[in-house]
């Protein structure tokens, strides 16, 4: 029988491969308002929020590497940017443990914006010959809006996919603590 950590790693690998294949085979071929949704930063954000900075950063690195390999892009660019996205989302969970229903939506928008700006910055640093034009900004903005709209269902899917293997889901932990009478903030006073 496999340990919870092995199970979690296996599920994360499956999520990364499935996510990238669906992204490149379907989502990228669906123009919405002149842009495409990009589920990679959303998956990384969701894993960061659910599993913490270490898992989030590692998952971001892995997904980025896989995207770069499959797309025949410059290796290391997506992995570096998505590593930052995953680590940031993980730190948000560890430092603040946000609870609101719309946290994934806001986090998804920030993750997408970070990824878009980071990726563009890397391209400019690597010598891409392209001006910062209005169509480019419009596409980035459209992707941001579309990604924010699908962030909640993507987060819900990832949470469902990983739930069985998560060692400690913050919400479950908190709910259990309240219902058993311990660790409630009210009991401290």
């Amino acid at each position, binding site marked *: 029988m496999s340990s919870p950590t092995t199970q979690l790693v296996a599920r994360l690998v499956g999520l990364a491969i499935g996510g990238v294949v669906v992204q490149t085979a379907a989502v*990228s*071929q669906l123009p919405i308002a002149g842009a495409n949704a990009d589920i990679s930063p959303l998956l990384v954000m969701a894993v960061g929020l659910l599993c913490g900075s270490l898992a989030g950063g590692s998952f971001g690195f892995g997904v980025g590497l896989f995207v770069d390999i499959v797309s025949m892009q410059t290796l*290391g660019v997506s*992995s570096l940017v998505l*590593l930052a996205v995953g680590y940031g989302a993980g730190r948000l969970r560890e430092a603040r443990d946000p609870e609101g229903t719309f946290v994934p939506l806001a986090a998804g928008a920030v993750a997408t914006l970070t990824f878009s700006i980071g990726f563009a910055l890397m391209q400019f640093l690597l010598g891409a010959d392209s001006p910062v034009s209005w*169509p480019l900004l*419009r*596409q980035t903005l459209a992707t941001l809006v579309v990604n924010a709209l699908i962030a909640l269902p993507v987060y819900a899917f990832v949470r469902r996919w990983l739930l069985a293997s998560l060692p400690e889901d913050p919400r479950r932990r908190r709910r259990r603590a309240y219902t058993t009478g311990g660790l409630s903030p009210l009991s401290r006073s």
Partner: protein
Amino acid sequence: MYDKTVRRRRAVLGLLVVSSLILLTAYFGESGGGALRGVQRGTSEVLNPVQEGASRALKPVRDLFGWFGATVAAKGKVEDLSAERDRLRGELARQDNATFENARMAKLLETSGALGLGDYGPKTGRVIFQSPTVWYATIRVDKGSKDGVAVGHPVMNEQALIGRVTAVFRGAAQVTLLTDTTASVSARAGRRNVFGLVEPVGAGNPNDLLLRHVPPGARLNPGDRVVTRGTLSDSDRLPSLYPRGLPIGVISRIENEGTDTQEVHLRPHADMRSLEFVQILTRPQGIDG
């Protein structure tokens, strides 16, 4: 315990950042046939059938979403198309006579049509992959080396030239579109055959291309057609990758006309964002090539 966790976290983070930077540096430093590119090719070779299957399986979903998008976009296009229809009606009347003569000439020369693509060994392929980022305008098609596809072959859709093959696998080929920041095609435009290079305006702009290196005094007008030039030099040592006369687009506007800084913009005939089937010309030099 807390310190240990933080140290571990930072160590892993640092390790991953360093790994990314090493990958970046190594990828830039190696040649086209290097180890990292070999890994990319090998992984793609394994994943191409998976992507092809996923692309087919997810087609109904794409079609459903595409239908909604196309309906909204179609409403916006009605006015533009009405104006274009009126203009084309007038043009059609003028072209009728020329077409009649052209048909006679074509028959005389025993060509198979205006473009004569049959001579170029076209292979029809399905798009199974599209780059997820605007910074790389690439697609992947389910035709590869076993179908006679090679690097450099021109690729068209049903409307016009869309790009060329830049990597080939056994059962798939990577195509770099005209809108990619690295793309460049020698072209001629207008009735006076003005030569130039078609290049993208920049990343994320699939409906606008530039015709660069056009002489300032060249007489071009909005509406002039742009096609492939078919050669890069007057000698046979550097033959063009593209056959002569493949349609690319129409000049949409000219900025700073007549000056050294003039910019000739063209609208590509092909809609690069909704490509499903494409044709790879496996004999770009024609039957003789």
